[in-house]
């Protein structure tokens, strides 16, 4: 029992390191800076200005927070999805099926790096907000903020896990990824306040990750304490778990199908 646990922990870290290396192998510092620091900033600027044009006021914090947290979604969706979906393209999927290692450990290990990466993205986003748009964090309690960011990146990683498994059977992973990402933009309340969305859209917003994370962060920046946001965070966490579980379930189903049909051609 103890031995299995240790094995799983080892697998977890190996998955994490592998993800880390894969993440950085392709990146030169310049590219990393461009995509991690500059690109998200340009998106933030875009929406902040639209917001300013729309409302005529200068309070950018609504959009800054929304977009900063969207960066978490970016790591979750693109990072995690590709690291799983990427298995298909590098042809290593069969090996994953065949290994006796606990799949949870592998996947969670992979997701771990992207969660850290996602958190970094949020901090960078908030940093830009302070630097360029006068984001005021004076009322913010740091601990609730950190917890919120952690849980939000975790739950988007859960979505990423699910998307990754979907990506294993779709022909066009990037199409799915980008659509989901933009859907998140639309439904999560990042740039549009939830109250102003039509009712049917609000329903969807309630079932996806990120929504509560964004709401919580806005509350925290306005001065709320941990007690007010705890219920939201709990729900956010549960949603993340739910998506991850569906992802595992999907993966096992694919695996069973593949073994039954004796083929990985569906992939």
């Amino acid at each position, binding site marked *: 029992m103890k031995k299995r646990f240790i094995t799983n922990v080892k697998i977890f870290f190996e998955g994490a390191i592998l993800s880390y290396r894969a993440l*950085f*192998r392709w*990146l*030169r*510092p310049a590219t990393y800076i461009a995509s991690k620091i500059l690109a998200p900033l340009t998106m933030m600027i875009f929406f902040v200005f639209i917001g300013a044009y729309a409302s005529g006021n200068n309070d950018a914090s609504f959009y800054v927070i929304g977009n900063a947290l969207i960066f978490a979604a970016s790591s979750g969706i693109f990072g995690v999805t590709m690291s799983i979906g990427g298995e298909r393209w590098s042809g290593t999927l069969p090996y994953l099926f065949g290994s006796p290692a606990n799949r949870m450990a592998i996947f969670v290990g992979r997701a771990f790096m992207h969660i850290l990466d996602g958190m970094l993205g949020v901090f960078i986003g908030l940093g830009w907000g302070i630097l360029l748009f006068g984001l005021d964090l004076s009322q913010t309690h740091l601990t609730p903020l950190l917890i919120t960011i952690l849980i939000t990146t975790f739950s988007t990683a859960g979505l990423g896990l699910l998307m990754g498994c979907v990506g294993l059977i779709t022909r066009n992973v990037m199409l799915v990824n980008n659509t989901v990402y933009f859907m998140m933009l639309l439904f999560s309340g990042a740039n549009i306040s939830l109250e102003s969305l039509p009712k049917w859209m609000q329903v969807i917003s309630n079932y996806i990750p990120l929504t509560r994370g964004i709401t919580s962060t806005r509350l925290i920046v306005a001065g709320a304490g941990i007690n007010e946001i705890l219920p939201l965070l709990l729900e956010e966490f549960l949603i993340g778990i739910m998506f991850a579980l569906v992802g595992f379930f999907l993966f096992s189903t694919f695996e069973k199908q593949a073994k039954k049909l004796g083929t990985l051609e569906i992939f």
Partner: protein
Amino acid sequence: MFMNAVEISNLKRQFKTTIGVIKRQTKEVIAVDGISFNIQAGELFGLLGPNGAGKTTTIKMLTTLLIPSSGTATIMGLDVVKDAEKIRPRIGFIFGGERGLYWRLSGLDNLRYFATLYYVDSNVAKKKIPELIELVGLKGREKEKVEGYSRGMRQRLHIARALLHDPEVLFLDEPTMGLDPVGAREMRMTIRDLQSAKKTILLTTHYMFEADALCERIAVINKGKIVALNTPEKLKTTVRDLSVVEIEIFGIPPEFLEKVRNLEYVDGVAVETRDQRQILLVHTPKGPSAISDIVEVLNGLRLGKIVTREPTLEDAYVRLVGGQM
């Protein structure tokens, strides 16, 4: 008309590769290290060498796709760097293989596209394309997408494309690679026909018998340098004094190989896989009389058939590139 269709003088090409992520180190790899040779107009010239010797890099420089690091090359008197645009309409090239074709398009559309890019007059193209399709044996399949073609069909489509604009000089990089024996033989016949049509052809290959059969002259290239340049006959004479003892073996540990190599009159050894069999090749001037010594050295190993034969171009090649196969 130029006497030399292709003139190469001290051509060099280096590549930079980087290692590492944070602290990047650059390494310089010399792919072509000062080669010189000339090809006469209408000649079928072979560039022979193992993988990684620099054949493809040389062809890419001659076809204006790479700029040499130093040295010069001219095609029909035109410099490959300065006059690249004048050269391109007059040469054809194939690198073959899976890449270089539009998979989602049909063979016919691939040809139509490149005919346009090579400024082939549309009336001429209307006639030429079906002719070429027939010539390379793709008739009836030209409307199918290239992604459904076999390896051999793709290779043949490459050839058709290279001939669309009736070039004077052709560069064929491993044209029979991946073809089945029948397809390869047909390809070689096509190449001979092209030569009869007075085209200058530079062919690269690592199939020795192919170079022997087709080429009027062969340059052997290894590690970026030309190690021999002559007609096939004369190249064979460099090994004329040698016989080759072929011993069928069933696995040979390296120390035994060394022992044979260290025998006094042994020029070189190589191990070859032929069909399912493993053959030890020993180059020695002593001929059959060396057999007993060799067998003694291989004491303990299981041996099969033993034969002595005349050297082929392949043996000359092995010797020239240092006995590594």
